């Protein structure tokens, strides 16, 4: 079931690549996988680098498709995001010069 869902998402994503100007290179990540990476990465920078409130950051990183879960671990300076079809991403705060990285 999980594999079927993943394949469907990937096909749906690749199906959106037609370009009237030519055939652009396509990258293998699905929309949901990219949205999960975006939410974790930008959520971490928003909370720990920009030092904005959690509610602001949840709104700031919101993209389409919306991720199913976004968790802010303030004590350990980590942000995790995940979707219902198993994609997950974690970003962590490194230091005051380098901010956050997506693991």
């Amino acid at each position, binding site marked *: 079931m999980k594999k079927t869902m993943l394949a469907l998402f990937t096909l749906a*994503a*690749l199906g*959106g*690549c037609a*370009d009237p100007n030519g055939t*652009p*290179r*396509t*990258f*293998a*990540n699905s*929309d949901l*996988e*990219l*949205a999960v*990476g*975006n939410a974790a*990465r930008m959520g971490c*920078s928003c909370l720990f*680098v*920009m*030092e*904005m*409130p959690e509610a*602001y950051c949840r*709104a*700031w990183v919101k*993209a*389409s498709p919306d991720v199913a879960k976004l968790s802010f671990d303030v004590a350990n300076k980590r942000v995790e995001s995940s979707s219902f079809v198993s994609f997950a*991403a974690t970003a962590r705060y*490194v230091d*005051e*010069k*380098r*901010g*956050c*990285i*997506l*693991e």
Partner: protein
Amino acid sequence: MRATLKSLALSCALGASLASAQTCPTRASWPTDEWPVNLVDATARAAPIKALEDFAFTLVGTDAERKGFRTDGLVIIKNGVLVYERYGRGHDATKRHISWSVAKSFSSALVGIAVREGALTLDDSICKHLPEYEGTAQCAITVKDAITFGTALGWQEEYENASYQVSSVIAMLYGAGHRDQLKHILTHKLVAEPGKRWSYSTGDAELASALAKRALAKAHGKDVFWKLLFEPIGMKRVVFEEDVLGTPLGGSMVFATPREFAKFGFLFMNDGCWNGARIMPEGWVASSVTPSDVFTATAPDTEDTPSGYSWWLNKASPARNKPKPWADLPDDTYAALGHWGQRIIVVPSEDLVVVRTGDDREGSIDVNELTKLSLAVTR
């Protein structure tokens, strides 16, 4: 006689060079610690302030709808003094803001510092500094190509409004390329001869920052950007994010307060000098704000704003039959521009720096109008 003339000419050239090398602008003060503050008279300047704020700070619809210009910070520096400052949407003077592509102008500046240090030259192959790519076709790319959007890599600069799968940027920051972003950039194939095709690219700028770090870190360590740029000009809290392998994300991920971003604009407005010390090499700023050869010769007709070393310029392009892009602003205006309306705008003839941070999700704030209204506040 010929030898005498030659000697005389050489002496004159050296003399001019030395005089120029010693010349850095003088100022009553430098904002290394804090900007001097002398706010414009809110009563006397009420009308132009209202016009500026109506333009920049009027929110449209609900926050969730993300409509209109959503200004988070606006700072105006006139004659080296902070004369206007306002924040919105929960931001304040202490909060860092994302730069998005304003970072590209930082990356080209860091390449300039590497040139000053003798750590690289603009004509170097990128592979001289990235030896792991030796033997690849990408070695035809020079350092200069990286700071002028001239690598000719088949980069696809798309954002959230396009299909995610065709965006080289989204794949690099959040997808398959995020762990080794340099590899992601340099596995794009060349689609033309480097230096012969202008194409705006976050990959080019990140490559530039990687080159600067590689070249400089050997002598100065991994914190070299802070040591040679940010600390000397008082950008005390700047964050420059990296991937897990330490490649700086120099196309998009610099975070600083608006007051700090203004210091970077002020550095360029002062010919790359800071309090008598030359941060940027002599002539670097002039080259940065001159349309690049690759832009002039090959930029698509849809591109109205000329670029130099990753700065955007208010220059007419007679060869391209284009007027200057910001009609109401002086010809010497230039800017660092970023997604969602991030701006550092420099107007040397007005001794003016304007920094605007924002979150514009449907069309970014107009440089011409923003700067025109800001100038009116200062007059």
